């Protein structure tokens, strides 16, 4: 069977089409958000929040709720607390993130061990899927996809409508405030969007590999481009292209989706670093 026929066969399945639609949308959001997070010096927040989401999903599994119904609000709430606490907080940002991520990972794993889900397969399979996204992308239901479409549309609309405000708030909060921009509102929205994107991205790459999707495209774009707009556009495109390639590779080579996507993003970063260096020389 030729490669093309093989792909044709795969794409005749609903779950494959779902995976690609959701993958493109999630990557687009992650690419946009990543630029803001990197420039605001919150690169590590993705890792921390994804672990929180993992803990929340474990709690949901134990209590018998749908994972998203618990993980989404909890992650958004924690994101808002972390990003808005400002200088007044007791524990500094990076320490708070480290504590939260280790804490929720531990609690989540403990809960899954104490109350193993009876209907699904092995415990290690469940945990592996949430941490590395090995199978979750290929098991999306129609509802999952629609949720992805809705949330991604909201995130993209946020970026398009408030693009200039987001730029101002990221570049210089003081000046933005003096120009009448309600910086706290935008920071709140950015935090909420981070929570949403991270919960969605967990489906694609899993909790541990989330930075590969959020941070890598932004950093790759910054190697080569020097204006905010070109970096944002390039990051979104790279994120989508990288994830598509990763998903295709995973499909054709039967490798884990999360790790495949992450490796493609690492390679893109390497190539862009090289191009950036050549351009400067």
């Amino acid at each position, binding site marked *: 069977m030729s490669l093309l026929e093989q792909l044709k066969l795969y794409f005749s399945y609903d779950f494959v089409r779902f995976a690609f639609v959701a993958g493109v949308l999630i990557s687009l959001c992650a690419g946009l958000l990543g630029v803001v997070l990197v420039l605001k010096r919150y690169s590590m927040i993705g890792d921390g929040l994804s672990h929180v989401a993992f803990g929340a999903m474990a709690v949901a599994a134990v209590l018998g709720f749908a994972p998203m119904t618990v993980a989404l609000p909890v992650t958004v709430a924690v994101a808002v607390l972390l990003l808005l606490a400002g200088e007044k907080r007791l524990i500094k940002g990076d320490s708070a993130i480290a504590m939260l991520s280790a804490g929720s990972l531990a609690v989540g794993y403990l809960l899954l061990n104490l109350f193993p889900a009876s209907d699904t397969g092995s415990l290690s399979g469940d945990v592996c899927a949430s941490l590395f996204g090995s199978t979750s992308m290929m098991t999306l239901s129609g509802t999952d996809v629609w949720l992805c479409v809705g949330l991604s549309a909201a995130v993209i609309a946020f970026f398009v409508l408030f693009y*200039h405000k987001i730029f101002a708030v990221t570049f*210089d909060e003081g000046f933005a405030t*003096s120009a009448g921009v309600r910086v706290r509102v935008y920071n709140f929205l950015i935090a909420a969007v981070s929570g949403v994107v991270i919960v969605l991205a967990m489906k694609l790459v899993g909790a541990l590999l989330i930075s590969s999707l959020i941070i890598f495209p932004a950093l790759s774009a910054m190697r080569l481009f020097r*204006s905010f707009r070109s970096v944002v556009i390039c990051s979104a495109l790279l994120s989508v292209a990288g994830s598509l390639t990763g998903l295709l590779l995973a499909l054709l080579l039967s490798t884990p989706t999360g790790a495949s996507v992450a490796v493609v993003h690492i390679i893109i970063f390497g190539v862009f670093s090289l191009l950036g260096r050549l351009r400067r020389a």
Partner: protein
Amino acid sequence: MALITCETLTLAYDTGVVASGVSFALERGSYLCIVGENGSGKSTLLRAMLGLHPISGGRLTVDPEARKKGIGYLPQHTPAQRDFPASVREIVRSGCLKKQGMSPFWKVSHKRLADKAMTRMGIDHIAGRCYRELSGGQQQRVLLARAFCATGDLILLDEPIAGLDPMAMTEMYGMIADLNREGVAVVMVSHDVSAAVSYATHILHMGKTTSFFGTTEEYLATPVGKQFARREGGSYGDWSPKTAWDAPSIGGILDVRAAPDARSVLGARGVSRDRGLTASRRRGGAASERGGRDA
């Protein structure tokens, strides 16, 4: 009503009070320099005028009409800006944010204003360049152009010449003085007392033990002014004739008055002489203007 009125103002952080009992009233079109030691609350006062820092006591009012027209602000650099990918044009245009309102796009008038600001500050030829690759002087011009886009009657500058070389410094002062000549009130936080007394119409000296507000002449006549000018003067020695500053026999007033001449000496070394001369002329003009007002 005065443009800015400040009555027994107290400013504080969690760690304690940084300034208290600050009182002054500033009229439209004035040029106020805020000088004083590090940590005396100069930048905090500027931030309080913009509503970026809460007031712990007293009263601080900025004419609502001036607020509505927009207040230009040139803040100090933040660490995040050092490797921020943004073009000069993008940054200058963000000065039009207030005028943009809730619209998601720039209007033609906003783009024109930004272009005008860039031409004015002499950065139109680098509009497409990346901010982080510019020299310190060019970066400050970009921020000044952005502030200009947001300016109506009042512009607030937080150490606009910090870290600039002498030539860039003189050019910066020239651009600020031009704005003031066009009727924009300038409030500038500065460590450069010599420039403060040669350009400003008013001086606010904030100190832990002493503070002062008045016209530049009045400031130079006070012991604080003399002492501060003499003490701070030494640090500008690297671009001015050392001896003029260090001579102990020369009083504070003379010390300071030497500054514009020092600029023209600098001009002879290959730095724009016109600017220096303009500065002296401007000082003379301002002095006679003030004289007229006093009479």
